[in-house]
C-alpha cells in the first residue's frame, strides 16, 4: 500500500508539474560560444526534462538574427550579450522589452592585436623574469602604434561583434584606459567614429582570424575559441582577457521578452531552475568542466575542437603557442553568485552606453529603473529558494543583497572603483568619455 501510494504520488507530482506549465515544448537560441554552456548542459544533463521542459536548442547565425527571432517570437528565449536586453528595451536597436533573469557567464572576452601591430608594441613592453611580457598589457603600449598609423593617414581599424554588445564596450574601455580615444556615437554618427583615434566595426566572430590576417583590421575583441586560433596560427597575439580590464561583470545572460515572461511565468521559473542547476553543475568540479568541453565540442553545439574548448573551460588562456597561462576565472558560470543578475551589472553596461554617446545624459534614478525593468533577480531568487527547499541548492548560494555589488578599483584595468548606485558620479571619473 505504502509502495503504491509512493508510485502514485511521484506520478502525480510529475504530472502536476507538467500540467502546471503554460508551455512545455520550447525552442531556445544560442550563439556558438562556450558561454552558452548552461543551456546546452541543462538539456544534455536532463535538467530541463526534470523540470518538465522539452527543449529544442538551435544555433543562430549572428546576434542580430538571434535578437530578432526572440522579439518575433520564433524563439522562446536565448543566450544573449549582457548589454543587449538593456539596449533593446531602451530602443537603441529594435525596440522590445526584454528581461534577463539569469546570468549565463562572467568574463570570457579578450583582445588580440595583429602580428604586425604586436611587433611594433613588443619592444616597449615590460617583461617577466622568464622574458615573456607581463599581462595584462595596457593600451598605453598600443598608443604609439595608433599614432604612427594616424601620421601616415591610415585608419586604425578594430573589430567587435555587436554595437550594443560586450565586445564593443570592453574594447572601448580598454582603449580609453590607455589614452586611445575609441570614438563617440552621435545622433548622426551611428558608427561611433566621432573624435576617435580608431574605427571599431562589427565582424562575425569566425571572420575575425581572417580579417586580422589580411590586415583589414589591426585588432579584435571577441570570445574564445577565436583568440586561441589567432595565437596558435601566429596571426596575432592576445594582449588581455576581460578578467583584467573589467572583472566580475555579466558577460552573457539568458533573456526572454517581457511579454513572453508575462504569458509564461511558471515556464520561465522552471527554465531558471534548470539553468541554476546547470550553472552549479558547471562550476562544481574540473571533471564536470571536462565533460562539458566534450559535450560542447559536438558539431551541433559549439563545435570547436575539444582541445580548444577544454583549455578555455579549464581556465587556461593562450597568449601564444608557447605561452599558456592559468587564469582559473577566465570564464565563470556560477560560483561567487556569478549567475545572479545584479542590478549593478546592468547599470555598468548602461554607464558605458552613456560614456560613448549611445545614450543621453540621465539621472541616477533612470539607471536604477531601467536596470530593474530588465535584470530580474526576483525571478532568480524565487527559483533558487525553491531549489533550496528541495535540497538541490545550498542556502548560502543565494546572495543577500539589494541587487547592488560594489567593484573595487582592482577589478578594472584603470583602477577606477565602481558603485552602481552612483552612475553619474562614476562617469565623472573617466578622462575620456561623455559625462
Amino acid at each position: 500500500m505504502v509502495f503504491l501510494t509512493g508510485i502514485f504520488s511521484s506520478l502525480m507530482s510529475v504530472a502536476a508539474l507538467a500540467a502546471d506549465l503554460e508551455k512545455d515544448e520550447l525552442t531556445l537560441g544560442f550563439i556558438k560560444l562556450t558561454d552558452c554552456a548552461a543551456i546546452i548542459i541543462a538539456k544534455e544533463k536532463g535538467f530541463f526534462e526534470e523540470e518538465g521542459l522539452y527543449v529544442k536548442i538551435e544555433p543562430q547565425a549572428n546576434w542580430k538574427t538571434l535578437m530578432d527571432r526572440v522579439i518575433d517570437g520564433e524563439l522562446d528565449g536565448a543566450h544573449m550579450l549582457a548589454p543587449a536586453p538593456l539596449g533593446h528595451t531602451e530602443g537603441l536597436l529594435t525596440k522590445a522589452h526584454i528581461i534577463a533573469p539569469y546570468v549565463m557567464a562572467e568574463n570570457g572576452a579578450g583582445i588580440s592585436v595583429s602580428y604586425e601591430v604586436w611587433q611594433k608594441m613588443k619592444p616597449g613592453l615590460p617583461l617577466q623574469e622568464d622574458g615573456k611580457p607581463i599581462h595584462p598589457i595596457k593600451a598605453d603600449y598600443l598608443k604609439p602604434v595608433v599614432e604612427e598609423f594616424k601620421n601616415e593617414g591610415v585608419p586604425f581599424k578594430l573589430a567587435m561583434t555587436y554595437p550594443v554588445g560586450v565586445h564593443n564596450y570592453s574594447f572601448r574601455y580598454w582603449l580609453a584606459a590607455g589614452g586611445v580615444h575609441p570614438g563617440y556615437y552621435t545622433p548622426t554618427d551611428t558608427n561611433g567614429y566621432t573624435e576617435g583615434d580608431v574605427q571599431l566595426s562589427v565582424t562575425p566572430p569566425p571572420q575575425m582570424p581572417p580579417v586580422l590576417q589580411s590586415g583589414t583590421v589591426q585588432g579584435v575583441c571577441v570570445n574564445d575559441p577565436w583568440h586561441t586560433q589567432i595565437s596558435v596560427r601566429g596571426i596575432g597575439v592576445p594582449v588581455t582577457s576581460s578578467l583584467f580590464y573589467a572583472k566580475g561583470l555579466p558577460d552573457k545572460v539568458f533573456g526572454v521578452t517581457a511579454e513572453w515572461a508575462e504569458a509564461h511565468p511558471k515556464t520561465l521559473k522552471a527554465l531558471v531552475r534548470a539553468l541554476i542547476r546547470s550553472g552549479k553543475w558547471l562550476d562544481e568540479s574540473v571533471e564536470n568542466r571536462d565533460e562539458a568541453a566534450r559535450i560542447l565540442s559536438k558539431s551541433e553545439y559549439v563545435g570547436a575542437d575539444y582541445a580548444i574548448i577544454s583549455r578555455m573551460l579549464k581556465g587556461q588562456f593562450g597568449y601564444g603557442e608557447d605561452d599558456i597561462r592559468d587564469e582559473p576565472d577566465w570564464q565563470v558560470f556560477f560560483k561567487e553568485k556569478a549567475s545572479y543578475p545584479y542590478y549593478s551589472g546592468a547599470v555598468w553596461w548602461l554607464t558605458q552606453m552613456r560614456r560613448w554617446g549611445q545614450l543621453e545624459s540621465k539621472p541616477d534614478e533612470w539607471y536604477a529603473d531601467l536596470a530593474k525593468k530588465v535584470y530580474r533577480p526576483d525571478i532568480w531568487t524565487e527559483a533558487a529558494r525553491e531549489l533550496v527547499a528541495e535540497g538541490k541548492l545550498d542556502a548560502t548560494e543565494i546572495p543577500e543583497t539589494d541587487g547592488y555589488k560594489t567593484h573595487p578599483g582592482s577589478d578594472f584595468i584603470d583602477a577606477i572603483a565602481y558603485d552602481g548606485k552612483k552612475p553619474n558620479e562614476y562617469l565623472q571619473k573617466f578622462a575620456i568619455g561623455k559625462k
Partner: protein
Amino acid sequence: MRNEPLRQILWKVGTPALTFGVFLLLWSTASANITTNLGQVPGPTQVLVQAKSLAVEHRTERRKEAEFRKNQTERNAKKLAEDPSAEVKIRKYTGRATYLDQIFTSLRTVFTGFLIASFIAVPVGILCGLSRTIMLALNPLIQIFKPVSPVAWLPIVTMVVSAVYVVPKEWMPKSYVISSITVSLCCLWPSLINTSIGVASIDKDYINVARVLKLGFFAKIFKIVLPAAMPYIFAGLRISLGVGWIVLIASEMLSQNPGLGKFIWDEFQNGSSQSLARIMVAVFTIGLVGFALDRVMVALHKLVSFGQEIH
C-alpha cells in the same frame, strides 16, 4: 573497325573519369600545401571521412528519436493503465536536424520558391509575349530587379514577412517562408523572359489560325500559345530552378532555415578542425543535387520539345 563500339565506350566513360582523376590529384596535392587558421585544407580522403561521419550521426539521431518515441508510448500507456482519465501528451522529439533532414529542407524550400516564381513568371511572360505594350511597360522593372542578389532581398523580405506573417503555423516557420520568397524573387526572371520570348516568336500563322477559328482568349492561350511556346518555357524553368538552387544556399545561411545553407554557416561558426571538410561535403552535395535537378528539368523539357535536341 571491330573495336569501334568498345572505343566509343572507353571514350565516353574514360574521358570524364580521367578528368575527375586529375582533379582529385590536383586537389589532394594542393590541399596538402595550404594551411588555414582552421588547419589544413581537407583533401578527398578527409571529406569522405566526414561524409561517413555525417551518415553515422544521422543514424544515431534516428535511433535516439525511435527510443524517445518508444519511451513516450510506454510512459503514456502506463499512465493510462493506472488512470484511464489521465491526460497524455504526445511530444515531438527535440533532437537536432540531421544532414539528411537538412538536404530535404533545402529541397522543399527551393521547390516552394520555384513554384511561387513559376506561377507568377509564366502568366506574366505570356502577357508580355502577346502584347508589345505590356512588354514595354514591364521591361524597366524586369531589367532593374533581375540582377539583384538574394542577399540584398533578404533583409527586406525578412522584415516584410515578420510584419505580415505574425502567427506562424508549425509546419510553415517564418525562416522557411523567408527563404522561399527570396528564392522566388531571384529565380522569377529567367522563366519570365524566356516565356515572353517564346510566346513572341510563335509562328504568326498559328496566331492567324486562332483568329480565323475565332478562339476565345483562354482557348487561344491553352490550345495555341502554350503548346507552341512550351520548349522556351521549359528552357526558362530549367534555368530558374538552377538559379533558385544557387541562391537558396545564400538565403538559408542568413535566414536560419535549417537546410544546407545553415549547415555551412554553422560549421563555419564551429571553426573546428573538421569544419572545412564538412563544408566540402556540403559543396559536393549541393553540386550533385543541383545536377540531379537539372537532369529532371531536361527530361521534362525533352518531353515537351517534340524531338528537338536538348543538352
